[in-house]
C-alpha cells in the first residue's frame, strides 16, 4: 500500500506561484527524494501534506487517510523536520524534546539520549544559545524520537557539517530498516543521489518526472573547467561537450567515466582542473535533450 498518495494536488497563492497538479506516490519502506530548485514548490507540497496550508484543489492521503480531514491522526505517526527550525526560546533542548514527545505519548528517554549522542547534541543547553547547525540537530532528534512511520525532511542537511551529515544518513537508513518511509526534499542533487531510491523532480510548481536514482545516475553530468598553459589548444575528449572557450579556459560538460576523462586529458599542459556538480538547470537540460 502506498504510504503517501498525492493526486492532482494544487495550491495557488495570490502573489507567488504554488504547486499545480502534483501527483506521485511513495511506497512503504522507500526513501523518496523530492528535488527541485529554490522556489519550485517543495516546501509548499510538504506543508500541504501536513495541513499547515490547505490545498486549492486535488487531494492526498497518508497511511490511507485524507490529509485534511484526518490530519491530526496522520501526524501521530509522522516526524517532520522543517527547512527552518524555530523553537520556543525559553526551552532547553531536553525540554523541547520531552514536550514534543508528550504529544505522541511514547517518550523513550534512552532513545533520546542515544540520538543526541550520535549527533553530538548537548541536551542541556538552551536552544536560543545554539548555532544554526545544532538547532537543526534538535530538529532531527525531534523528528525521529517518537519512531514515526513516515519521516518528512525539508532540506535536512543545510547547516550540518559533513561528519554529522554522514551520521544523519546512517540514522535514516536504520529507520528504514525498522520499517519507516522517508520523504526527503532537497536542492542538492548529490545528497538525493546518495540516499534515495526514487526521486521526483519538481520545477516551477509542476512535477516533471519521477525517476529511480539508478536512471538519474546513469546520466551523471559534470561541469569540467580546464585551464591550460596556453590558449588555442584543441581538446577532444569522447563524451565531452564543449560549452565555452575563453582564452586559456575551456569549460565542458562530461557524462562519461572519470578514468577516461583523465586519460584523455593526460599529456595536455594543464594548469588547473575543476570538476564540479552541475546546476540543476543543466541536469534538467541535459536530461531532456534526448
Amino acid at each position, binding site marked *: 500500500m502506498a504510504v503517501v498518495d498525492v493526486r492532482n494536488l494544487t495550491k495557488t497563492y495570490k502573489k507567488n506561484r504554488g504547486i499545480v497538479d502534483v501527483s506521485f506516490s511513495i511506497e512503504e519502506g522507500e526513501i523518496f527524494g523530492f528535488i527541485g530548485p529554490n522556489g519550485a514548490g517543495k516546501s509548499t507540497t510538504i506543508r500541504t501534506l501536513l495541513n*499547515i*496550508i490547505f490545498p486549492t484543489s486535488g487531494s492526498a492521503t497518508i497511511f490511507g487517510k485524507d490529509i485534511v480531514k484526518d490530519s*491530526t491522526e496522520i*501526524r501521530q505517526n*509522522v516526524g517532520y523536520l*522543517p527547512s527552518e527550525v*524555530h*523553537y*520556543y526560546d525559553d526551552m532547553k533542548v531536553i525540554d523541547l524534546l520531552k514536550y514534543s514527545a508528550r*504529544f505522541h505519548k511514547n517518550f523513550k528517554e534512552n532513545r533520546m539520549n542515544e540520538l543526541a549522542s550520535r549527533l553530538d547534541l548537548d541536551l542541556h543547553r538552551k536552544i536560543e544559545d545554539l548555532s544554526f547547525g545544532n538547532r537543526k540537530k534538535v530538529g532531527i532528534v525531534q523528528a525521529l524520537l517518537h519512531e514515526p512511520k513516515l519521516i518528512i525532511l525539508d532540506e535536512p542537511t543545510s547547516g550540518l557539517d559533513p561528519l554529522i551529515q554522514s551520521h544523519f544518513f546512517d540514522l535514516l537508513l536504520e529507520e528504514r530498516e525498522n520499517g519507516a518511509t522517508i520523504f526527503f526534499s532537497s536542492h542538492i542533487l548529490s545528497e538525493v543521489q546518495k540516499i534515495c531510491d526514487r526521486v521526483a523532480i519538481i520545477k516551477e510548481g509542476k512535477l516533471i518526472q519521477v525517476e529511480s536514482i539508478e536512471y538519474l545516475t546513469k546520466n551523471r553530468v559534470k561541469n569540467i573547467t580546464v585551464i591550460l598553459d596556453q590558449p588555442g589548444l584543441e581538446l577532444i575528449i569522447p563524451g565531452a561537450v564543449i560549452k565555452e572557450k575563453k582564452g586559456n579556459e575551456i569549460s565542458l560538460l562530461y557524462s562519461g567515466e572519470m578514468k577516461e576523462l583523465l586519460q584523455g586529458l593526460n599529456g595536455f599542459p594543464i594548469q588547473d582542473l575543476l570538476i564540479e556538480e552541475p546546476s540543476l538547470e543543466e541536469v534538467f537540460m541535459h536530461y531532456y535533450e534526448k
Partner: protein
Amino acid sequence: MIFQRELKRSRKSLIIWSLVLAGLIIWLLSIFPSFAKSQASMEALMESYPESIRQMFGMNQLNLGSLIGFYGLEVYMMVTLLGSIYAALLASNILAKEEGEKTVEFLLSKPISRSRIVSQKALAVFVNIIILNAVSAVSSLIGFQFAKDEDIPGKTFVLLSIAALLLHLTFASISFLFSSIMRKTRNTLSISLAVVIVTYFLNVISGLSEDLEILKYFSPFKYVDSANIISDNRIEPIFIVIMGILIAGSIAAAFFIYKKKDIAV
C-alpha cells in the same frame, strides 16, 4: 500540554500584575479613612469640579465619602482599566506569537488539532484572568478592613467583582479573536490595546451630554459602570447579555478562523 505550558509561561507576568494591582488597591483603600474624616473638605472638593466632570465620572450618583462610593469611584477604575489592559496584552498575542516566532510549524506538525490549540490557549487566558480577579477581590476585602466603622454591602461588592471579571473576559475574547486572525504580534497588541483605550474614552465622554448617551452601548466600560451598579444594586441584564455574546462570539469566531486558515511560515 499547551494549557500547562502557557500557564507556566505567563506565570511571571501574572504575579507581577497581581502584585501591582493588589498593592494599588490596598494602598488606595488605606487612604480612605483619613480621606473620609475630612468630610467638609471633601464636599468642597466635589463642588470644585465642574458639573460636566461630575456627570462624566458619575460623581453625582456616588458619595465619595462612603466606602462603597470611594471604592466605586477610585479603586474600581483601577481594577477595570488595568485588568482590561492585562487581558488585552495576554490574549492578543497568545495565538499570534506562534506564527510571529515561527514555532507554529513545529506545533502544527504534532498530532494536535487546531481546535485543541485554540481551546487550550483560550483556557489559559481565562484562568489567568480569573486568578487576577480573585487577587483583586481579596485585596479589596483586605483593604476594606482599613475602614473600621464602615462596611460594604456584600451583594454590591459581589456584583462589582463579577462585572469586572466579565469586562476583562470581554476584552480578552476580542483580543483573542484578533490573535487568531493576524500573525504579527505587534499588530495584535496595538489593536487590542487600542480597543481598550478607545472604549474607555468613549465611556468617559458618553457621560458628558444626553446626545452622547448612545455611545454607552459601544463601550464595555459603560456596561460595568460602578455608579450604576452601586446605585441600582444590579448589573443591567442587557449589558450582561452583550458581554456574553461578545465573549462567546469572539471565541467561536477565533476557533472557526484558526481552523480554516493557511498558517504562514
